[in-house]
């Protein structure tokens, strides 16, 4: 978290804004994504099971850890984390990406309607299918959601690199979080832009998720195009220096 937050930009100098320098401080550079917490703050632990363990069951390390945390500073837990058993970080991230103008209520209701739509469609198929096919049909909307996004993740990406006055699209391996982000971003863009007039988001999104689950559909095609472009530009791969 701290390493990622030190993404720097040129412009205002650090001392002018009164920003406290964290991990790396370079003259003339300001952090873009940073947090008000200093490096001594620890992340909070929200699991109920962790706090409900009776004192007798704790190991030495855990006891030490608990004592330590009593004296340390701890960041505040974000409002979106719950102790709910039904909480899913991927679904939360997707809901946040779908949100517009801070309207989390609407984004969450769209997400729940999508999951319901996926479930109902799968149930319909299940009812119409024969006994052998029924074993293969997946009715859990969460499994379908996770699998669909995993199928949409690209393995390799393109990055514009400036060389000799021109920008070249260089194929580059992507980090895990970048891949997840791209999959979700493509899915949401596809559902927002390419839909018929008067189709609602849950309807379109459930349709796209089911297609991605089966490795078909426009989002999978976009991933495959990205792979093809990377393959086509593989001669430029040596422009990458990291």
């Amino acid at each position: 978290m701290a390493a990622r937050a030190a993404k720097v930009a040129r412009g205002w100098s650090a001392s002018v804004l009164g920003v406290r320098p964290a991990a790396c401080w370079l003259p003339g550079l300001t952090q873009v994504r940073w947090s008000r917490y200093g490096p001594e703050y620890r992340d909070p632990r929200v699991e109920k099971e962790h706090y409900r363990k009776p004192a007798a069951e704790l190991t030495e390390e855990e006891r030490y850890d608990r004592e330590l945390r009593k004296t340390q500073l701890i960041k505040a837990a974000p409002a979106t984390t719950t102790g709910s058993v039904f909480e899913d970080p991927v679904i939360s991230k997707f809901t946040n990406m779908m949100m517009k103008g801070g309207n989390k209520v609407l984004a969450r209701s769209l997400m729940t309607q999508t999951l319901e739509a996926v479930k109902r469609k799968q149930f319909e198929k299940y009812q119409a299918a024969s006994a052998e096919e029924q074993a293969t049909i997946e009715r859990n909307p969460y499994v379908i959601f996770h699998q669909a996004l995993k199928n949409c993740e690209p393995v390799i990406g393109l990055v514009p690199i400036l060389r000799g006055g021109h920008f070249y699209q260089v194929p580059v391996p992507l980090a895990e979080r970048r891949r997840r982000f791209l999959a979700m971003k493509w899915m949401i863009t596809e559902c927002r832009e390419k839909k018929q007039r008067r189709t609602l988001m849950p309807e379109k999104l459930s349709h796209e998720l089911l297609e991605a689950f089966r490795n078909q559909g426009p989002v999978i095609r976009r991933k495959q195009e990205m792979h093809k472009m990377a393959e086509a530009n593989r001669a430029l791969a040596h422009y990458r220096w990291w």
Partner: protein
Amino acid sequence: MLVLGSRSTRTMLKEITRLVSMVQKAKHGEQHEGQHYRVPLQDVKTVFPHGLPPRFVKQVKTFGEACLMVRKPALELLHYLKNTNFAHPAVRYLLYGEKGTGKTLSLCHVIHFCAKQDWLIVHIPDAHLWVKNCPDLLQSTYNRQRFDQPLEASTWLKNFKTTNERFLSQIKVQEKYLWNKRESIEKGSPLGEVVEQGIARVKNATDAVGIVLKELRRQSSLGLFHLLVAVDGVNALWGRTTLRKEEKSPVAPEELALIHNLRKMMKNDWHGGAIVSTLSQTGSLFKPRNAYLPQELLGKEGFDALDPFVPILVSNYNPKEFESCIQYYLENSWLQHEKAHTEAGKKELLFLSSANPGQLERLCAYL
């Protein structure tokens, strides 16, 4: 209890939570509280062409079966209905309760029971639909001051016909009615003709509805059949409307012919049946969201018109009913989330829905 043949391990659960009784509707008793019973799909098409709440219709379509839970308010009503004295004036029953507690489905349970006992059912699915969002208001030909609603009246007549096919040929009209200069209904012709005329000529549909209600009221007192008047959202009859006349002045409910006739139906000056109704805040106009008591929703005028009535409170699930509902969803594999099968998951569902049936259904839909 019937054991459903070859469904292996889940048969035990089914015995606990399900009571598959297609014929023994009259035998629902205290011991069946909390259990589900299946309504045959054929009955759903005839008895409930328009009565079920939309989310329930979706559930019926997804599961392929319609299962209602037997609950205390419905059992109470059934007990009263079984012991009605048809010589006395019709008793008015009012189901009230907070939002999502199951008033409409209890009403549907009662309607199904009465349909099985061969009563004639006059079911208005939602009276609020008649006082709002009506683009075509015609001035009534029968009475200059009132307004007709051709669309709503004709749809209702179609559904009425589906529910009560067999009675339409038996009941005869006892008066001559003139539609216009050329068409009329003679005395002694079957009620089916009035309904046909209303469906075919949409302009006369509201008057046809008025005639049907008047004739049924008159003839149920003669004892040929038992009449059940079931109105959902009865507080619409005495509230305000959002409809406006051409001069942009608001329309009062009395000025709508459908509402006027329905109000006459709700008076207890006829005998030979019963009136069961539900209050509903969900579709109501100009009422606060947390109002659920009869006094709040009906207003002074409505309360005085309905007084005296038997109020029946519909409340949230008790622990047994909640468990039964969860078991029903688990049997149909509706709860797909792995954690929903665990104790912690069930406790969380109880907390999130606070045992409210409507909320629980919405929660389980996406889990």
